[in-house]
Protein backbone atom coordinates (compact mmCIF):
# COMPACT_ATOMS: atom_id res chain seq x y z
CA UNK A 1 0.00 0.00 0.00
CA UNK A 2 2.79 2.37 1.02
CA UNK A 3 4.55 1.56 -2.24
CA UNK A 4 1.50 2.19 -4.36
CA UNK A 5 1.17 5.64 -2.77
CA UNK A 6 4.79 6.40 -3.51
CA UNK A 7 4.43 5.21 -7.08
CA UNK A 8 1.40 7.42 -7.58
CA UNK A 9 3.34 10.41 -6.28
CA UNK A 10 6.26 9.73 -8.64
CA UNK A 11 3.88 9.38 -11.53
CA UNK A 12 2.08 12.64 -10.80
CA UNK A 13 5.42 14.43 -10.62
CA UNK A 14 6.38 12.99 -13.94
CA UNK A 15 3.11 14.00 -15.53
CA UNK A 16 3.57 17.54 -14.24
CA UNK A 17 6.96 17.62 -15.96
CA UNK A 18 5.36 16.65 -19.21
CA UNK A 19 2.33 18.89 -18.72
CA UNK A 20 3.07 21.12 -21.66
CA UNK A 21 2.66 18.26 -24.06
CA UNK A 22 -0.45 17.10 -22.24
CA UNK A 23 -2.01 20.58 -22.25
CA UNK A 24 -1.61 20.83 -25.97
CA UNK A 25 -3.46 17.59 -26.23
CA UNK A 26 -6.24 18.82 -23.92
CA UNK A 27 -6.94 21.76 -26.14
CA UNK A 28 -7.46 19.68 -29.19
CA UNK A 29 -9.34 16.65 -27.88
CA UNK A 30 -11.27 15.31 -24.94
CA UNK A 31 -12.11 13.20 -23.08
CA UNK A 32 -8.79 11.42 -22.57
CA UNK A 33 -7.32 8.59 -20.56
CA UNK A 34 -3.96 7.97 -18.98
CA UNK A 35 -2.66 4.46 -19.13
CA UNK A 36 0.44 3.27 -17.36
CA UNK A 37 1.64 0.10 -18.97
CA UNK A 38 4.91 -1.63 -18.17
CA UNK A 39 7.65 0.90 -18.83
CA UNK A 40 5.57 3.49 -20.68
CA UNK A 41 2.87 6.05 -19.94
CA UNK A 42 0.23 6.51 -22.63
CA UNK A 43 -2.10 9.47 -22.80
CA UNK A 44 -5.14 9.84 -25.02
CA UNK A 45 -7.60 7.34 -26.38
CA UNK A 46 -5.38 6.30 -29.21
CA UNK A 47 -2.16 6.27 -27.20
CA UNK A 48 -1.27 9.56 -28.85
CA UNK A 49 1.45 10.34 -26.33
CA UNK A 50 3.87 7.93 -24.83
CA UNK A 51 6.82 8.54 -22.60
CA UNK A 52 8.90 6.23 -20.51
CA UNK A 53 7.45 5.75 -17.05
CA UNK A 54 9.70 6.92 -14.22
CA UNK A 55 8.81 3.75 -12.34
CA UNK A 56 10.29 1.66 -15.07
CA UNK A 57 13.36 3.85 -15.14
CA UNK A 58 14.02 3.10 -11.51
CA UNK A 59 14.62 -0.49 -12.42
CA UNK A 60 16.25 0.23 -15.72
CA UNK A 61 19.12 2.45 -14.50
CA UNK A 62 18.75 4.81 -17.41
CA UNK A 63 18.25 7.92 -15.28
CA UNK A 64 21.08 6.77 -12.99
CA UNK A 65 23.78 7.60 -15.46
CA UNK A 66 24.46 11.20 -14.61
CA UNK A 67 28.08 11.94 -15.29
CA UNK A 68 30.49 10.63 -17.88
CA UNK A 69 34.10 11.71 -17.61
CA UNK A 70 36.30 11.61 -20.69
CA UNK A 71 40.08 11.89 -20.36
CA UNK A 72 41.53 13.95 -23.19
CA UNK A 73 45.19 14.25 -24.05
CA UNK A 74 46.56 17.16 -26.01
CA UNK A 75 48.94 15.22 -28.23
CA UNK A 76 51.55 16.04 -30.85
CA UNK A 77 49.96 15.73 -34.28
CA UNK A 78 52.31 13.01 -35.51
CA UNK A 79 51.34 13.51 -39.13
CA UNK A 80 52.82 17.01 -39.00
CA UNK A 81 56.11 16.13 -37.32
CA UNK A 82 59.25 17.37 -39.03
CA UNK A 83 62.83 16.23 -38.74
CA UNK A 84 65.63 18.78 -38.48
CA UNK A 85 67.59 18.16 -41.71
CA UNK A 86 70.97 18.98 -40.14
CA UNK A 87 70.76 17.24 -36.75
CA UNK A 88 68.28 14.51 -37.66
CA UNK A 89 66.39 15.40 -34.46
CA UNK A 90 62.64 15.14 -34.31
CA UNK A 91 61.11 18.60 -33.85
CA UNK A 92 58.44 17.68 -31.32
CA UNK A 93 58.31 21.00 -29.47
CA UNK A 94 57.27 23.04 -32.49
CA UNK A 95 54.83 20.47 -33.89
CA UNK A 96 51.11 21.34 -33.84
CA UNK A 97 48.96 19.75 -31.16
CA UNK A 98 45.49 18.26 -31.25
CA UNK A 99 43.15 16.05 -29.24
CA UNK A 100 44.60 12.55 -29.41
CA UNK A 101 42.50 10.65 -31.96
CA UNK A 102 41.59 7.80 -29.64
CA UNK A 103 40.36 10.25 -27.01
CA UNK A 104 38.15 11.87 -29.61
CA UNK A 105 36.55 8.48 -30.12
CA UNK A 106 36.03 8.28 -26.35
CA UNK A 107 34.35 11.69 -26.37
CA UNK A 108 32.17 10.75 -29.34
CA UNK A 109 31.12 7.58 -27.54
CA UNK A 110 30.18 9.56 -24.43
CA UNK A 111 28.03 11.85 -26.56
CA UNK A 112 26.33 8.90 -28.23
CA UNK A 113 25.57 7.36 -24.85
CA UNK A 114 24.13 10.69 -23.74
CA UNK A 115 22.02 10.90 -26.89
CA UNK A 116 20.64 7.42 -26.31
CA UNK A 117 19.97 7.86 -22.64
CA UNK A 118 19.58 11.60 -22.21
CA UNK A 119 20.27 13.49 -19.00
CA UNK A 120 23.97 12.74 -18.65
CA UNK A 121 26.60 15.47 -18.26
CA UNK A 122 29.92 15.01 -20.02
CA UNK A 123 33.06 16.43 -18.43
CA UNK A 124 36.47 16.23 -20.02
CA UNK A 125 39.67 16.11 -17.99
CA UNK A 126 43.07 17.11 -19.36
CA UNK A 127 46.49 17.14 -17.71
CA UNK A 128 49.03 19.32 -19.45
CA UNK A 129 52.03 21.55 -18.90
CA UNK A 130 50.64 23.80 -21.60
CA UNK A 131 47.60 25.95 -21.92
CA UNK A 132 45.43 23.45 -23.75
CA UNK A 133 42.34 25.68 -23.87
CA UNK A 134 42.12 25.97 -27.69
CA UNK A 135 42.08 22.20 -27.96
CA UNK A 136 39.49 21.96 -25.18
CA UNK A 137 37.23 24.44 -26.97
CA UNK A 138 37.02 21.90 -29.76
CA UNK A 139 35.97 19.21 -27.28
CA UNK A 140 33.25 21.52 -25.96
CA UNK A 141 32.11 22.23 -29.51
CA UNK A 142 31.88 18.53 -30.26
CA UNK A 143 29.58 18.09 -27.28
CA UNK A 144 31.28 18.05 -23.87
CA UNK A 145 29.42 20.11 -21.27
CA UNK A 146 32.39 21.26 -19.24
CA UNK A 147 36.17 20.89 -19.47
CA UNK A 148 38.64 20.56 -16.62
CA UNK A 149 42.27 21.45 -17.29
CA UNK A 150 45.08 20.82 -14.85
CA UNK A 151 47.84 23.03 -16.07
CA UNK A 152 51.16 23.87 -14.51
CA UNK A 153 54.87 23.75 -15.16
CA UNK A 154 55.49 20.82 -12.80
CA UNK A 155 53.65 18.66 -15.33
CA UNK A 156 56.37 18.90 -17.94
CA UNK A 157 57.73 15.48 -19.01
CA UNK A 158 55.34 13.61 -16.76
CA UNK A 159 55.22 9.86 -17.29
CA UNK A 160 52.18 7.57 -17.34
CA UNK A 161 52.26 7.17 -13.55
CA UNK A 162 52.15 10.92 -12.89
CA UNK A 163 49.54 11.56 -15.59
CA UNK A 164 47.27 8.91 -14.12
CA UNK A 165 47.91 10.19 -10.60
CA UNK A 166 46.94 13.77 -11.45
CA UNK A 167 43.91 12.56 -13.43
CA UNK A 168 42.81 10.50 -10.42
CA UNK A 169 43.14 13.45 -8.02
CA UNK A 170 41.25 15.69 -10.44
CA UNK A 171 38.42 13.21 -10.81
CA UNK A 172 38.23 12.81 -7.02
CA UNK A 173 37.85 16.58 -6.72
CA UNK A 174 35.15 16.67 -9.39
CA UNK A 175 33.31 14.13 -7.29
CA UNK A 176 30.65 11.69 -8.44
CA UNK A 177 30.70 9.99 -11.83
CA UNK A 178 29.27 6.86 -13.40
CA UNK A 179 31.59 6.14 -16.25
CA UNK A 180 35.10 7.14 -17.29
CA UNK A 181 36.05 6.79 -20.94
CA UNK A 182 39.61 7.03 -22.26
CA UNK A 183 41.29 6.31 -25.57
CA UNK A 184 43.06 2.93 -25.49
CA UNK A 185 46.35 4.68 -26.19
CA UNK A 186 47.62 8.10 -27.26
CA UNK A 187 48.52 9.31 -30.71
CA UNK A 188 52.04 10.47 -29.84
CA UNK A 189 53.49 8.36 -27.05
CA UNK A 190 51.41 5.26 -27.83
CA UNK A 191 51.89 3.79 -24.35
CA UNK A 192 48.38 2.57 -23.63
CA UNK A 193 48.90 2.52 -19.87
CA UNK A 194 47.12 5.57 -18.47
CA UNK A 195 43.57 4.19 -18.57
CA UNK A 196 44.51 1.05 -16.65
CA UNK A 197 46.64 3.00 -14.18
CA UNK A 198 43.75 5.38 -13.54
CA UNK A 199 41.35 2.49 -12.95
CA UNK A 200 43.77 1.05 -10.41
CA UNK A 201 44.18 4.38 -8.59
CA UNK A 202 40.42 4.88 -8.40
CA UNK A 203 39.85 1.20 -7.64
CA UNK A 204 37.43 0.83 -10.55
CA UNK A 205 36.51 -2.13 -12.70
CA UNK A 206 38.20 -1.69 -16.05
CA UNK A 207 37.68 -2.93 -19.61
CA UNK A 208 40.28 -1.99 -22.17
CA UNK A 209 40.12 -1.73 -25.97
CA UNK A 210 36.34 -1.76 -26.29
CA UNK A 211 34.95 -1.55 -29.81
CA UNK A 212 31.32 -1.48 -28.70
CA UNK A 213 29.69 -0.30 -25.49
CA UNK A 214 26.14 -0.69 -24.23
CA UNK A 215 24.57 0.32 -20.95
CA UNK A 216 21.70 -1.33 -19.16
CA UNK A 217 20.49 -1.77 -15.60
CA UNK A 218 23.43 -0.03 -14.01
CA UNK A 219 25.84 -2.26 -15.90
CA UNK A 220 28.12 -1.52 -18.78
CA UNK A 221 28.86 -4.19 -21.36
CA UNK A 222 31.77 -3.94 -23.77
CA UNK A 223 32.95 -5.99 -26.71
CA UNK A 224 36.61 -6.27 -27.53
CA UNK A 225 38.90 -8.17 -29.84
CA UNK A 226 41.81 -9.92 -28.20
CA UNK A 227 44.75 -11.56 -29.95
CA UNK A 228 42.92 -14.82 -30.52
CA UNK A 229 39.35 -14.29 -29.34
CA UNK A 230 36.37 -11.95 -29.22
CA UNK A 231 35.29 -11.20 -25.69
CA UNK A 232 32.26 -9.53 -24.17
CA UNK A 233 32.74 -8.25 -20.65
CA UNK A 234 30.20 -6.81 -18.25
CA UNK A 235 30.78 -4.67 -15.22
CA UNK A 236 28.89 -2.67 -12.66
CA UNK A 237 29.18 1.09 -12.86
CA UNK A 238 31.06 3.20 -12.02
CA UNK A 239 33.66 1.71 -14.33
CA UNK A 240 36.48 2.78 -16.61
CA UNK A 241 36.55 1.78 -20.26
CA UNK A 242 39.16 2.48 -22.91
CA UNK A 243 38.02 2.55 -26.52
CA UNK A 244 39.54 1.72 -29.90
CA UNK A 245 39.27 3.87 -33.00
CA UNK A 246 36.85 1.39 -34.60
CA UNK A 247 34.16 2.14 -32.03
CA UNK A 248 32.78 5.15 -33.92
CA UNK A 249 33.43 7.98 -36.36
CA UNK A 250 33.79 11.20 -34.36
CA UNK A 251 31.56 14.07 -35.52
CA UNK A 252 32.86 17.36 -36.81
CA UNK A 253 31.33 20.30 -34.94
CA UNK A 254 29.09 22.69 -36.88
CA UNK A 255 29.51 26.44 -36.73
CA UNK A 256 26.54 26.62 -34.34
CA UNK A 257 28.17 24.12 -32.00
CA UNK A 258 31.45 26.04 -32.10
CA UNK A 259 29.65 29.26 -31.19
CA UNK A 260 27.72 27.60 -28.39
CA UNK A 261 30.95 26.17 -27.00
CA UNK A 262 32.37 29.62 -26.30
CA UNK A 263 29.79 29.95 -23.51
CA UNK A 264 30.75 26.65 -21.88
CA UNK A 265 33.06 26.58 -18.90
CA UNK A 266 36.72 25.51 -18.78
CA UNK A 267 37.79 25.00 -15.16
CA UNK A 268 41.54 25.43 -14.72
CA UNK A 269 43.35 23.97 -11.74
CA UNK A 270 46.99 23.63 -10.76
CA UNK A 271 48.56 20.75 -8.86
CA UNK A 272 48.46 23.01 -5.79
CA UNK A 273 44.67 23.30 -6.09
CA UNK A 274 44.62 19.52 -6.02
CA UNK A 275 47.00 19.30 -3.02
CA UNK A 276 49.40 17.15 -4.98
CA UNK A 277 52.81 16.79 -3.37
CA UNK A 278 55.72 17.18 -5.75
CA UNK A 279 57.24 13.79 -4.78
CA UNK A 280 54.05 12.05 -5.83
CA UNK A 281 54.54 12.98 -9.45
CA UNK A 282 58.27 12.38 -9.71
CA UNK A 283 59.17 10.43 -12.82
CA UNK A 284 59.28 6.66 -12.48
CA UNK A 285 60.75 6.27 -15.95
CA UNK A 286 62.86 8.64 -17.94
CA UNK A 287 63.25 9.04 -21.69
CA UNK A 288 66.97 9.28 -22.38
CA UNK A 289 66.94 9.54 -26.17
CA UNK A 290 64.53 9.95 -29.05
CA UNK A 291 66.03 8.67 -32.30
CA UNK A 292 64.73 8.79 -35.83
CA UNK A 293 64.39 5.19 -37.01
CA UNK A 294 67.05 4.19 -39.48
CA UNK A 295 66.13 2.25 -42.54
CA UNK A 296 68.70 0.89 -44.88
CA UNK A 297 66.84 -0.15 -47.97
CA UNK A 298 68.10 -0.82 -51.45
CA UNK A 299 65.53 1.42 -53.15
CA UNK A 300 65.96 -0.19 -56.56
CA UNK A 301 63.31 0.99 -59.02
CA UNK A 302 62.36 -1.58 -61.60
CA UNK A 303 61.46 -0.20 -65.01
CA UNK A 304 60.86 -1.65 -68.43
CA UNK A 305 59.17 -1.32 -71.80
CA UNK A 306 55.94 -2.98 -70.70
CA UNK A 307 54.25 -4.68 -67.76
CA UNK A 308 55.49 -8.14 -68.73
CA UNK A 309 59.09 -7.00 -68.78
CA UNK A 310 58.79 -5.24 -65.43
CA UNK A 311 57.05 -8.21 -63.83
CA UNK A 312 59.68 -10.55 -65.25
CA UNK A 313 62.52 -8.47 -63.81
CA UNK A 314 60.87 -8.21 -60.42
CA UNK A 315 60.22 -11.95 -60.27
CA UNK A 316 63.85 -12.61 -61.16
CA UNK A 317 65.14 -10.20 -58.50
CA UNK A 318 63.00 -11.85 -55.83
CA UNK A 319 64.16 -15.31 -56.79
CA UNK A 320 67.76 -14.12 -56.69
CA UNK A 321 67.21 -12.79 -53.16
CA UNK A 322 66.84 -16.44 -52.22
CA UNK A 323 63.49 -15.91 -50.51
CA UNK A 324 61.35 -17.61 -53.06
CA UNK A 325 62.21 -21.20 -53.66
CA UNK A 326 62.11 -22.58 -57.12
Amino acid at each position, binding site marked *: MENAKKDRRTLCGHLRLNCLKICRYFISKRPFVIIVHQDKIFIGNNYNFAFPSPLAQNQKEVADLKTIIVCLKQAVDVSQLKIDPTTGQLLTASAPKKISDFDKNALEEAIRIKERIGAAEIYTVTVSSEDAKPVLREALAIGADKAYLVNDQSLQNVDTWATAYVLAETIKKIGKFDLILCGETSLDSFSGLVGSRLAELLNLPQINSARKISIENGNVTAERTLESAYETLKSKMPALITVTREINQPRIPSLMMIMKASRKEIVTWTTTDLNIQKEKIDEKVEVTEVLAPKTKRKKI*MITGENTEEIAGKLAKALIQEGIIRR
Partner: protein
Amino acid sequence: MSENRGVLVFSEEYDLMLEMIGKGREIAKELQTELAVALVGSNVQKKASELIKYGADKVFLVDNPALERFQAERYLSVLHNLAVDYKPDILLIGSTKNGKALAARLATRLETGCIPDCTRLSVDKKGRLIGERITYGGNAIARVTFRSRPQIVTIPAKVFEKLEPRDRNGEITKLDVKIEDPQTEIVETKPLETSSRNIEEAEIVVSCGRGLEKKDDKILLERLAEILNAQVGNTRPLAEDRKWFTEWVGLSGHKVKPKLYIACGLSGIIQHVAGIRDSKIIVAINSDPEAPIFEVADYGVVGDLYDILPALTEALRKQLS
Protein backbone atom coordinates in the same frame (compact mmCIF):
# COMPACT_ATOMS: atom_id res chain seq x y z
CA MET B 1 70.57 0.18 -3.59
CA SER B 2 67.23 -1.53 -3.80
CA GLU B 3 66.73 -4.95 -2.31
CA ASN B 4 65.02 -6.22 -5.43
CA ARG B 5 66.68 -9.19 -7.17
CA GLY B 6 66.10 -11.36 -10.16
CA VAL B 7 64.00 -11.39 -13.30
CA LEU B 8 60.38 -12.57 -13.29
CA VAL B 9 58.57 -13.47 -16.52
CA PHE B 10 54.83 -13.75 -17.06
CA SER B 11 52.39 -14.02 -19.94
CA GLU B 12 49.05 -15.74 -20.32
CA GLU B 13 50.22 -16.65 -23.84
CA TYR B 14 52.54 -19.61 -23.57
CA ASP B 15 54.65 -19.01 -26.68
CA LEU B 16 55.20 -15.40 -25.80
CA MET B 17 56.32 -16.50 -22.35
CA LEU B 18 58.92 -18.82 -23.91
CA GLU B 19 60.21 -15.96 -26.08
CA MET B 20 60.55 -13.74 -23.02
CA ILE B 21 62.38 -16.48 -21.14
CA GLY B 22 64.89 -16.46 -24.00
CA LYS B 23 65.57 -12.75 -23.54
CA GLY B 24 65.21 -12.93 -19.75
CA ARG B 25 68.05 -15.49 -19.58
CA GLU B 26 70.35 -13.06 -21.34
CA ILE B 27 69.50 -10.23 -18.93
CA ALA B 28 69.73 -12.45 -15.86
CA LYS B 29 73.17 -13.59 -16.96
CA GLU B 30 74.36 -10.04 -17.42
CA LEU B 31 73.09 -9.06 -13.99
CA GLN B 32 74.31 -12.34 -12.47
CA THR B 33 70.93 -13.12 -11.08
CA GLU B 34 68.24 -15.73 -11.55
CA LEU B 35 65.34 -16.03 -13.92
CA ALA B 36 61.96 -16.98 -12.51
CA VAL B 37 58.71 -17.63 -14.35
CA ALA B 38 55.18 -17.21 -13.04
CA LEU B 39 53.15 -20.10 -14.38
CA VAL B 40 49.57 -19.07 -13.67
CA GLY B 41 46.39 -20.85 -14.69
CA SER B 42 44.23 -23.87 -14.14
CA ASN B 43 45.69 -27.33 -14.73
CA VAL B 44 49.01 -25.98 -15.90
CA GLN B 45 51.42 -27.84 -13.60
CA LYS B 46 52.49 -30.21 -16.36
CA LYS B 47 54.13 -27.31 -18.18
CA ALA B 48 56.39 -26.34 -15.27
CA SER B 49 59.28 -28.67 -16.10
CA GLU B 50 59.18 -27.60 -19.74
CA LEU B 51 59.71 -23.98 -18.70
CA ILE B 52 62.93 -25.02 -16.99
CA LYS B 53 64.08 -26.71 -20.20
CA TYR B 54 63.47 -23.43 -22.02
CA GLY B 55 65.64 -21.52 -19.57
CA ALA B 56 63.88 -20.80 -16.27
CA ASP B 57 65.82 -21.22 -13.00
CA LYS B 58 62.66 -21.11 -10.94
CA VAL B 59 59.02 -21.68 -11.68
CA PHE B 60 56.39 -20.23 -9.37
CA LEU B 61 53.38 -22.39 -10.01
CA VAL B 62 49.99 -20.91 -9.18
CA ASP B 63 47.47 -23.50 -10.25
CA ASN B 64 43.87 -22.81 -9.36
CA PRO B 65 40.52 -23.47 -11.09
CA ALA B 66 39.66 -19.79 -10.51
CA LEU B 67 42.47 -18.92 -12.93
CA GLU B 68 41.04 -20.91 -15.82
CA ARG B 69 40.33 -17.76 -17.83
CA PHE B 70 42.19 -14.49 -17.73
CA GLN B 71 40.30 -12.12 -15.48
CA ALA B 72 42.12 -8.94 -14.64
CA GLU B 73 41.74 -8.76 -10.86
CA ARG B 74 42.44 -12.46 -10.34
CA TYR B 75 45.67 -12.45 -12.30
CA LEU B 76 46.63 -9.06 -10.91
CA SER B 77 46.38 -10.31 -7.33
CA VAL B 78 48.57 -13.32 -8.14
CA LEU B 79 51.28 -11.23 -9.78
CA HIS B 80 51.08 -8.59 -7.06
CA ASN B 81 51.59 -11.23 -4.39
CA LEU B 82 54.59 -12.65 -6.24
CA ALA B 83 56.11 -9.20 -6.73
CA VAL B 84 55.75 -8.40 -3.02
CA ASP B 85 57.04 -11.74 -1.71
CA TYR B 86 59.77 -12.51 -4.23
CA LYS B 87 60.78 -8.85 -4.89
CA PRO B 88 62.03 -9.18 -8.47
CA ASP B 89 64.16 -6.37 -9.83
CA ILE B 90 62.74 -6.83 -13.33
CA LEU B 91 59.35 -8.04 -14.55
CA LEU B 92 58.86 -8.99 -18.19
CA ILE B 93 55.17 -9.17 -19.06
CA GLY B 94 53.73 -10.21 -22.44
CA SER B 95 52.22 -7.29 -24.37
CA THR B 96 48.83 -8.75 -25.15
CA LYS B 97 45.83 -6.51 -24.51
CA ASN B 98 45.22 -8.26 -21.20
CA GLY B 99 48.93 -8.35 -20.40
CA LYS B 100 49.32 -4.63 -20.87
CA ALA B 101 46.40 -3.78 -18.63
CA LEU B 102 47.84 -6.16 -16.06
CA ALA B 103 51.30 -4.58 -16.25
CA ALA B 104 49.86 -1.07 -15.95
CA ARG B 105 47.77 -1.93 -12.91
CA LEU B 106 50.57 -3.89 -11.27
CA ALA B 107 53.01 -1.01 -11.79
CA THR B 108 50.46 1.35 -10.25
CA ARG B 109 49.82 -0.88 -7.25
CA LEU B 110 53.59 -1.08 -6.70
CA GLU B 111 53.99 2.66 -7.42
CA THR B 112 56.60 1.98 -10.05
CA GLY B 113 57.29 2.66 -13.71
CA CYS B 114 56.39 0.60 -16.75
CA ILE B 115 57.82 0.71 -20.28
CA PRO B 116 55.32 -0.79 -22.70
CA ASP B 117 55.93 -2.61 -26.00
CA CYS B 118 59.71 -2.81 -25.91
CA THR B 119 61.28 -3.99 -29.12
CA ARG B 120 64.74 -3.99 -27.62
CA LEU B 121 66.06 -4.44 -24.10
CA SER B 122 69.50 -3.88 -22.65
CA VAL B 123 71.16 -3.19 -19.33
CA ASP B 124 73.22 -0.05 -18.68
CA LYS B 125 76.39 0.30 -16.58
CA LYS B 126 74.40 0.95 -13.43
CA GLY B 127 72.46 -2.24 -13.99
CA ARG B 128 69.31 -0.41 -15.04
CA LEU B 129 67.11 -1.78 -17.76
CA ILE B 130 66.84 0.25 -20.96
CA GLY B 131 63.85 -0.35 -23.20
CA GLU B 132 63.47 0.83 -26.77
CA ARG B 133 60.03 1.49 -28.14
CA ILE B 134 58.36 3.07 -31.15
CA THR B 135 56.77 6.47 -30.46
CA TYR B 136 55.42 9.52 -32.26
CA GLY B 137 53.30 7.41 -34.54
CA GLY B 138 56.26 5.45 -35.85
CA ASN B 139 58.40 8.54 -36.48
CA ALA B 140 60.84 7.79 -33.69
CA ILE B 141 62.36 5.24 -31.38
CA ALA B 142 62.55 6.28 -27.73
CA ARG B 143 65.09 4.87 -25.30
CA VAL B 144 63.59 4.79 -21.85
CA THR B 145 65.02 3.79 -18.49
CA PHE B 146 63.84 3.45 -14.89
CA ARG B 147 63.99 5.57 -11.78
CA SER B 148 61.97 3.16 -9.70
CA ARG B 149 61.84 -0.50 -8.72
CA PRO B 150 60.76 -3.04 -9.73
CA GLN B 151 61.30 -2.35 -13.41
CA ILE B 152 58.28 -3.51 -15.39
CA VAL B 153 58.35 -3.83 -19.17
CA THR B 154 55.90 -5.36 -21.61
CA ILE B 155 57.07 -7.24 -24.69
CA PRO B 156 55.11 -7.95 -27.86
CA ALA B 157 55.02 -11.36 -29.52
CA LYS B 158 57.75 -12.30 -32.00
CA VAL B 159 60.27 -9.72 -30.80
CA PHE B 160 62.59 -12.18 -29.10
CA GLU B 161 63.36 -15.78 -29.85
CA LYS B 162 62.85 -18.75 -27.62
CA LEU B 163 65.85 -20.91 -26.79
CA GLU B 164 66.30 -24.50 -27.83
CA PRO B 165 64.94 -26.66 -25.00
CA ARG B 166 67.54 -28.75 -23.16
CA ASP B 167 67.85 -30.56 -19.86
CA ARG B 168 68.66 -28.11 -17.07
CA ASN B 169 68.27 -27.89 -13.33
CA GLY B 170 65.55 -25.74 -11.87
CA GLU B 171 63.22 -25.42 -8.98
CA ILE B 172 59.45 -25.61 -9.04
CA THR B 173 57.63 -23.93 -6.17
CA LYS B 174 53.91 -24.42 -5.81
CA LEU B 175 52.24 -21.39 -4.26
CA ASP B 176 48.88 -20.83 -2.66
CA VAL B 177 47.93 -17.27 -3.31
CA LYS B 178 44.89 -15.38 -2.15
CA ILE B 179 42.97 -14.51 -5.31
CA GLU B 180 40.87 -11.35 -5.53
CA ASP B 181 37.33 -11.49 -6.86
CA PRO B 182 36.97 -10.19 -10.40
CA GLN B 183 35.13 -6.90 -10.94
CA THR B 184 34.11 -7.76 -14.48
CA GLU B 185 32.20 -10.76 -15.70
CA ILE B 186 32.94 -12.58 -18.96
CA VAL B 187 29.61 -12.71 -20.78
CA GLU B 188 30.90 -14.37 -23.91
CA THR B 189 34.10 -15.41 -25.65
CA LYS B 190 34.50 -16.85 -29.07
CA PRO B 191 37.64 -17.56 -31.03
CA LEU B 192 38.63 -15.23 -33.86
CA GLU B 193 37.61 -16.63 -37.25
CA THR B 194 40.98 -15.90 -38.73
CA SER B 195 43.89 -16.75 -36.57
CA SER B 196 45.53 -13.37 -36.23
CA ARG B 197 48.84 -14.97 -35.45
CA ASN B 198 49.15 -16.45 -38.95
CA ILE B 199 50.18 -13.21 -40.52
CA GLU B 200 52.69 -12.45 -37.79
CA GLU B 201 54.38 -15.75 -38.42
CA ALA B 202 54.22 -15.72 -42.21
CA GLU B 203 57.47 -15.79 -44.20
CA ILE B 204 55.91 -13.83 -47.03
CA VAL B 205 53.11 -11.26 -46.80
CA VAL B 206 51.27 -9.62 -49.70
CA SER B 207 49.39 -6.50 -48.58
CA CYS B 208 47.07 -3.99 -50.15
CA GLY B 209 45.80 -0.52 -49.30
CA ARG B 210 43.22 1.88 -50.57
CA GLY B 211 44.46 1.34 -54.09
CA LEU B 212 42.22 -1.73 -54.06
CA GLU B 213 38.89 -0.68 -55.52
CA LYS B 214 36.64 -3.53 -54.46
CA LYS B 215 36.82 -6.06 -51.68
CA ASP B 216 36.58 -8.90 -54.19
CA ASP B 217 39.66 -7.63 -56.01
CA LYS B 218 41.69 -9.10 -53.17
CA ILE B 219 41.64 -12.23 -55.31
CA LEU B 220 44.53 -10.63 -57.26
CA LEU B 221 46.61 -10.76 -54.10
CA GLU B 222 45.37 -14.19 -53.16
CA ARG B 223 46.48 -15.61 -56.51
CA LEU B 224 49.97 -14.25 -55.97
CA ALA B 225 49.93 -15.43 -52.35
CA GLU B 226 49.05 -18.93 -53.45
CA ILE B 227 52.17 -19.25 -55.59
CA LEU B 228 54.37 -17.76 -52.87
CA ASN B 229 52.72 -19.62 -50.01
CA ALA B 230 52.10 -16.21 -48.46
CA GLN B 231 49.55 -14.59 -46.16
CA VAL B 232 47.47 -11.65 -47.32
CA GLY B 233 47.25 -8.44 -45.31
CA ASN B 234 45.87 -4.92 -45.67
CA THR B 235 46.10 -1.38 -44.33
CA ARG B 236 43.86 0.01 -41.65
CA PRO B 237 41.44 2.09 -43.74
CA LEU B 238 40.25 -1.07 -45.49
CA ALA B 239 39.15 -2.33 -42.09
CA GLU B 240 38.21 0.85 -40.28
CA ASP B 241 36.63 2.95 -43.03
CA ARG B 242 35.51 0.41 -45.59
CA LYS B 243 34.76 -2.38 -43.10
CA TRP B 244 35.95 -5.02 -45.57
CA PHE B 245 38.17 -6.71 -43.04
CA THR B 246 38.55 -6.74 -39.27
CA GLU B 247 42.32 -6.67 -38.98
CA TRP B 248 45.26 -4.82 -40.44
CA VAL B 249 49.01 -4.54 -40.45
CA GLY B 250 50.79 -1.64 -38.76
CA LEU B 251 51.56 0.16 -35.57
CA SER B 252 48.09 -0.34 -34.14
CA GLY B 253 47.56 -3.70 -35.84
CA HIS B 254 49.71 -6.72 -36.53
CA LYS B 255 53.44 -6.21 -36.60
CA VAL B 256 54.97 -8.49 -39.17
CA LYS B 257 58.53 -9.46 -39.91
CA PRO B 258 58.46 -11.67 -42.96
CA LYS B 259 61.35 -12.31 -45.28
CA LEU B 260 59.35 -10.63 -48.03
CA TYR B 261 56.64 -7.97 -47.77
CA ILE B 262 54.90 -6.95 -50.99
CA ALA B 263 53.01 -3.67 -50.55
CA CYS B 264 50.46 -2.96 -53.28
CA GLY B 265 48.43 0.25 -53.62
CA LEU B 266 49.30 1.50 -50.17
CA SER B 267 51.00 4.81 -49.61
CA GLY B 268 53.40 3.83 -46.85
CA ILE B 269 52.21 6.26 -44.19
CA ILE B 270 54.41 5.98 -41.13
CA GLN B 271 51.87 4.10 -38.98
CA HIS B 272 51.68 1.33 -41.52
CA VAL B 273 55.44 1.24 -42.07
CA ALA B 274 56.03 0.94 -38.30
CA GLY B 275 54.46 -2.52 -38.50
CA ILE B 276 56.54 -3.80 -41.42
CA ARG B 277 59.91 -2.26 -40.63
CA ASP B 278 61.49 -5.55 -39.62
CA SER B 279 60.73 -7.21 -42.94
CA LYS B 280 63.85 -8.42 -44.70
CA ILE B 281 62.86 -7.30 -48.20
CA ILE B 282 60.09 -4.83 -48.99
CA VAL B 283 58.59 -4.53 -52.47
CA ALA B 284 56.38 -1.55 -53.32
CA ILE B 285 53.89 -1.40 -56.17
CA ASN B 286 52.22 2.00 -56.44
CA SER B 287 50.93 4.17 -59.27
CA ASP B 288 52.23 7.35 -57.64
CA PRO B 289 56.01 7.73 -58.07
CA GLU B 290 56.03 10.12 -55.09
CA ALA B 291 54.42 7.63 -52.68
CA PRO B 292 56.44 7.43 -49.45
CA ILE B 293 56.41 3.63 -49.55
CA PHE B 294 59.21 3.80 -52.15
CA GLU B 295 61.46 5.39 -49.51
CA VAL B 296 61.36 2.24 -47.40
CA ALA B 297 61.31 -0.31 -50.22
CA ASP B 298 64.10 -2.49 -51.60
CA TYR B 299 62.35 -2.91 -54.93
CA GLY B 300 59.86 -0.45 -56.33
CA VAL B 301 57.55 -0.58 -59.31
CA VAL B 302 55.60 2.48 -60.42
CA GLY B 303 52.44 1.13 -61.95
CA ASP B 304 48.86 0.06 -61.59
CA LEU B 305 48.46 -2.87 -59.24
CA TYR B 306 45.68 -4.20 -61.48
CA ASP B 307 48.28 -4.66 -64.24
CA ILE B 308 51.38 -5.51 -62.23
CA LEU B 309 49.92 -8.11 -59.88
CA PRO B 310 48.56 -10.51 -62.55
CA ALA B 311 51.76 -10.05 -64.57
CA LEU B 312 53.95 -10.74 -61.54
CA THR B 313 51.92 -13.81 -60.65
CA GLU B 314 52.34 -15.07 -64.21
CA ALA B 315 56.07 -14.27 -64.32
CA LEU B 316 56.69 -16.11 -61.06
CA ARG B 317 54.64 -19.07 -62.23
CA LYS B 318 56.82 -19.31 -65.34
CA GLN B 319 60.16 -18.73 -63.64
CA LEU B 320 59.41 -21.12 -60.78
CA SER B 321 58.28 -24.00 -62.97
